[in-house]
């Protein structure tokens, strides 16, 4: 069949109910022997499953492997010389889709140098109840200060305990994760401390 546009298409004629319906294929006729065989087949299947080993992972004792890129709880990293990587730029807080990161920056001074940059994070808090573990903070960070580690067992007993403070986030990472991050080349050499306070007339803009 061809319509005015020359397209070949399947016609869909109007039908009365039941008209033109192809007859159902002749299946096996129901019989007692067939029913009993089906019943026995089912029982055989379940019995053979009964004697197979269980597939359950005994969770608290036994854990399934996680991907290297698994996004669990956050860590704030330090340089090898002990200075914090975080420079208080708040890009992580800006990138966070749920707004669970609070960064309050403060100026580094020569007497109190916390990070190699101009500023450091005086307060760094993550509300883990809000966090969706998307990893955008990790992507946004210019100095690879925040990473998402492998831990996922984060349950606790009060809402307050889910506000992870800077002290908690600065806890050392599992050594294997640390080694992996260093091997990936994210361990950029410690930059020389910037002069601080900057020359008079405000901050310089880095190109």
């Amino acid at each position, binding site marked *: 069949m061809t319509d005015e546009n020359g397209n070949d298409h399947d016609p869909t004629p109007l039908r009365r109910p039941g008209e033109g319906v192809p007859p159902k294929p002749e299946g096996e006729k129901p019989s007692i022997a067939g029913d009993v065989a089906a*019943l026995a087949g*089912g*029982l055989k299947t*379940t019995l053979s*499953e*009964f004697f197979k*080993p*269980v*597939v359950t992972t005994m969770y608290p004792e036994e854990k399934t492997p996680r991907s290297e890129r698994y996004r669990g709880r956050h860590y704030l990293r330090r340089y090898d010389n002990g200075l914090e990587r975080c420079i208080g730029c708040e890009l992580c807080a800006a990138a966070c889709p749920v707004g669970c990161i609070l960064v309050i920056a403060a100026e580094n001074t020569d007497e109190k140098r916390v990070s190699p940059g101009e500023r450091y994070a005086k307060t760094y808090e993550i509300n883990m109840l809000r966090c969706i573990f998307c990893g955008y903070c990790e992507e946004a960070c210019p100095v690879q200060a925040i990473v998402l580690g492998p831990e996922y067992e984060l349950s606790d007993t009060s809402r307050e305990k889910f506000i992870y403070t800077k002290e908690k986030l600065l806890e050392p990472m599992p050594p294997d994760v640390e080694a992996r991050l260093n091997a990936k080349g994210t361990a950029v050499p410690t930059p020389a401390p910037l002069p601080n306070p900057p020359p008079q007339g405000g901050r310089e803009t880095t190109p």
Partner: protein
Amino acid sequence: MTGFYNDPVGHWVVVTVAIAVLLFVVLTATAYTVWFERVALGRIQRRPGPNRVGPFGLMQLAADGVKLAFKESFIPANTDKVLYVIAPTIAVAAAFLSWAVIPIGLWYNVQYWIADINIGILLIFAFSSLNVYAILLGGYSSNNKYSLLGGLRSAAQLISYEIALGLSLVPTFMIVGSLRLRDIVDYTVHWGPYTGPIPLVLLTPIGFVIYLMAAVAETNRAPFDLPEAEQELIGGFLTEYSGLKFVMYYLAEYINMITVSALAALLFFGGWYLWFVPPVLAFVAKVIFFLFLYIWLRGTLPRLRYDMLMRLGWKVLMPLAIANIIVTGIVLVAVQG
């Protein structure tokens, strides 16, 4: 001992002690039946089942029991409060009453029973019929349409299958000539050189098959668990029950399961007689075998549709049971003259 038993006071002492022992044994057996079912169903689905509380999860039922006992005893608004409370007690009382007449072989000439009456099996049928009241009244008094539907389904189902259940055993009574359960177990044949008890399933295989199917329906177990059909009826008559009242229904279901398993062993598989196996072990082994069969069926078969259930009961099982009686009668007359 016999003198003490025949003494009017001593008789009651013996019966009271026997009841206490039986209550303890049946309740323990029920708890471990639930454990056994959960583990067996788990294994069928390739998971371990309860394994946390105690060794192999054996204390799971204690934990569940404590949890359910401490739940609030809640009665929904606008219910018939008296019936709502009485219904589960009827269920559990009827379930326990059946054990009054079930004999248990302890050793070769030692049997245990509370009442050894000559219509034992009829009494068990009477008690198992009481279960209909428990479910129907529970469904009626809950003031919930799902409960009511579950109760009505249960009434129709139990009445249909009661007939097949009763008729399936008539050939056994015709062969043995007694309704006393001990007589049925002790039924002795003289076949050539062999003289002794036989499993009666050899003489009434069709009766056994009908009994097995009707018993599953009678205990509301899958695939005949239409009264509580979780997917369609949100739990049927159990919908509004929680806490200890729920425990009573639950307990009754599992006691009934053990009862029909024990009856299958007593009526068709020679009770406590099994070759050289000590009687009490033989009896327990047979009961566990039938319990496993019920669990196995539950793990295998989907629930029947309501019309299929009715068709099976009225158009297949009942005519088959009647034909079985007629054929057995003809054969008996031909053999015994």
